[in-house]
């Protein structure tokens, strides 16, 4: 293996020293900066596992299910900004990974997933553990490759990393027939030249920037709507976003994916928007005259009914993916480019432009927003009597406060992932993120079972951090086998289960839309989560009443190893505000704390019922 650790770069047309394909593969991964692979072995990839065994540069984390390997790599990628790497075997290994790949595609997470394949001469013969992996994953990846010739191997690996992280990031699959891994292959280093066809535009067009700044300066009722693109553009983009808000005095809202790019505690932040967004954020979107979308994609969870979405406003859209622009919502000013570069250009043009803002109109707008804020749409009532039942919102608020205090005291940073359901929305609403890359959730695909493996990946990437999966009791069970991985690698991930004994989000829709017929949404026959933690050699704890909550959270934070904290919460609680599918932003259902006059729920329509 001396060639792997050798620092002398090989010549491009390296024919002189041929190594086994598996060794060439690892060498290319190393050149690409891969430190860790999340994977699971099998017959087709044994040559790679053999090569892994004989080196120390790249760590391998053995998961317990291939889907978890992909989510772990997502957690790793999202918490670091690096490309995550996955290795699975052919056939069932590859098909198990598909959900994770699509999850990464929809949330624009850069990954390279290596899949084993039967030897080239058997492809197409229904060989043992053969799957048409490139066929199956084509719509679930940004791009995929089947390596059929040894001389393509190194080049394809380098190209895969370039594609995964360039432009709008995404997952890339490399399908590797076993004979390619065993046979000799030449090594070629990372190319210096541009990719022959894939060259996404990152620099914004100056004319469009000038038009955008003119519209923004003249705005009377502006709003900034930021998304995951800002996170993907790196921490510098988040800083520029803060600067733009400071400079302009504009209100800002964020998508689920964008949380943390702008500090949630700041008074310019209106909270998340969309289906479970705040009253003020959604009404500001509805009533604005100029909207600046930075790195978001007008997703249906955000827009509600399209033909009622922010009618009449001038819409500016910054996106690195031209196909995101004018897809759902026609915009007036399209800016194709990287969010950081576009924000930089806007700030420069803003300073160069001498027109002044309409301070009076802005003040009126803020007064209107403050009136919307005054209804306190996220209000809920928590009893503090001994034995009182815990409201899930309160559990998240306490988790936020206590981790914040812990961070201030010890400097240990907190990273949060979630599963999918009500707990996810409460986490988004009540945990106040103030930095990018600290919040990981499955937004586009909404994959239950995402959070635990994602937290595992964050913990591998950030060994000293406090990594918490905010979970639901149903979602947790979709990938709970990963508790064993946590124990094996001493990854002290905390699972914070908001246990409402229901698939709460399903129950909520059934209550609101299906006459309270709770068909199959009760979490029957739940395991004892405390004993379950112990069975996996972790620590289990439980809070059943509000007076126990803080102690359990503190104990969870203090525990040195993995923890499952079973937080038994109010089973009937619903997640509000809510814009039902197919309704407009101003057709919001508010919670029981609110005067029903504010909204009558008239947004519930038959057409909306057909939507997801």
């Amino acid at each position, binding site marked *: 293996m001396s060639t792997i650790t050798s620092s002398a770069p090989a010549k491009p047309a390296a024919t002189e020293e041929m190594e086994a394909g598996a060794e060439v593969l690892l060498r290319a991964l190393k050149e690409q900066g891969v430190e860790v692979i999340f994977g699971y072995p099998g017959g087709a990839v044994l040559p790679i596992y053999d090569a892994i065994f004989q080196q120390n540069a790249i760590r391998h984390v053995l998961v317990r299910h291939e889907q978890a390997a992909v989510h772990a790599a997502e957690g790793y990628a999202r918490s670091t900004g690096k490309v995550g790497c996955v290795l699975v075997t052919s056939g069932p290994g590859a098909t198990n990974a598909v959900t994770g790949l699509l999850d990464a595609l929809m949330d624009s997470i850069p990954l390279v997933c290596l899949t084993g394949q039967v030897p080239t001469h058997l492809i197409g013969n229904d060989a043992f553990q053969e799957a048409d992996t490139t*066929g199956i994953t084509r719509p679930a990846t940004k*791009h995929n490759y089947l390596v059929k010739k040894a001389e393509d191997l190194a080049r394809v690996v380098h190209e895969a990393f370039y594609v995964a992280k360039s432009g709008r990031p995404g997952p890339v699959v490399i399908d590797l027939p076993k004979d390619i891994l065993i046979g000799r292959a030449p090594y070629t280093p990372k190319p210096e030249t541009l990719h*022959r*066809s894939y060259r*996404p535009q990152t620099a914004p067009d100056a004319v469009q920037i000038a038009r955008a700044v003119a519209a923004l300066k003249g705005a009377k009722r502006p709003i900034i709507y930021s998304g995951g693109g800002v996170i993907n553009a790196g921490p510098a983009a988040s800083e520029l976003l803060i600067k733009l808000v400071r400079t302009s005095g504009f209100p800002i809202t964020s998508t689920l994916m964008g949380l943390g790019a702008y500090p949630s505690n700041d008074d310019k932040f209106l909270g998340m928007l969309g289906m479970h967004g705040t009253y003020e954020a959604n009404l500001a979107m509805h009533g604005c005259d100029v909207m600046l979308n930075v790195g978001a994609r007008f997703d249906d969870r955000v827009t509600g009914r399209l033909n009622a979405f922010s009618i009449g406003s001038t819409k500016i859209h910054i996106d690195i993916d*031209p*196909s995101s622009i*004018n897809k759902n919502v*026609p915009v007036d000013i399209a800016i194709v480019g990287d969010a950081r570069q576009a924000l930089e250009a806007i700030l420069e043009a803003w300073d160069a432009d001498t027109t002044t803002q309409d301070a009076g109109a802005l003040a009126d707008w803020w007064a209107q927003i403050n009136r919307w804020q005054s209804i306190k749409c996220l209000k809920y009532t928590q009893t503090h009597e001994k034995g009182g039942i815990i409201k899930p919102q309160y559990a998240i608020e306490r988790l936020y406060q206590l981790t914040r205090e812990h961070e201030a005291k010890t400097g240990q940073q907190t990273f949060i992932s979630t599963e999918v359901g009500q707990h996810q929305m409460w986490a988004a609403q009540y945990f106040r993120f103030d930095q990018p890359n600290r919040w990981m959730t499955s937004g586009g695909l909404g994959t239950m079972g995402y959070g635990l493996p994602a937290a595992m990946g964050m913990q591998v990437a950030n060994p000293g951090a406090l990594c918490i999966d905010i979970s639901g009791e149903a979602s947790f069970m979709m990938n709970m086998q990963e508790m064993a991985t946590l124990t094996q690698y001493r990854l002290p991930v905390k699972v914070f289960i908001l246990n409402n004994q229901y698939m709460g989000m399903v129950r909520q829709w059934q209550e609101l839309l299906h006459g309270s017929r709770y068909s199959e949404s009760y979490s029957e026959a739940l395991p004892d989560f405390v004993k379950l933690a112990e069975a996996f050699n972790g620590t289990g704890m439980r809070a059943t009443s509000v007076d126990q909550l803080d102690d359990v959270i503190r104990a969870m934070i203090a525990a040195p190893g993995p923890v499952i904290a079973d937080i038994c919460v109010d089973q009937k609680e619903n997640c509000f505000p809510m814009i039902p599918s197919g309704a407009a932003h101003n057709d919001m259902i508010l919670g029981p704390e609110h005067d029903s006059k504010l909204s009558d729920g008239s947004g519930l329509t038959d057409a909306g019922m057909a939507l997801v």
Partner: protein
Amino acid sequence: MTSLQDTTIRSATISVLVENEAGVLARVVGLFSGRGYNIDSLTVAPVEGDGGRSRINIVTSGTTMVIEQIKAQLDRLVPVHRVADLTQDGPHIAREMALIKVVGTGMNRTEALRLADAFRARVVDATIESFVFEMTGQTDKLDAFIDVLRPLGLAEVSRTGIAAIARGKRGF
């Protein structure tokens, strides 16, 4: 450019220059089926020596917003070099070739031959009971010819789908 709000359905001839690699056609076709776009005609063949690049010509239809979306989606496929909307970018030529078999005897047979002559189709195969005509032209001209042959023993049609190119010196 026509307005994105325009809801009329138009036809568009789109040319795509792609890297000639395995799976590239599947990516393009999968994009259309996966996103629910129409394909009215599709042709593909290598257009550079040593199989370097291929050109795909697609005739599709949709609102302006959908057609713009189709172009953007095609353009972001990794092996795609360039996408051109020939319908939008200026005058262009679109041609298609058809092989048309007519089976019959007597009057129908002579009439078919006479019409072929009028439509400038060539006879590329003849037996006592059949003709195969070859015809190149615009899609609607081919349609018209096939239509008139229908009562005269039209037996089989094989069409290439269109190949298209911009007029004048403007390149792809």
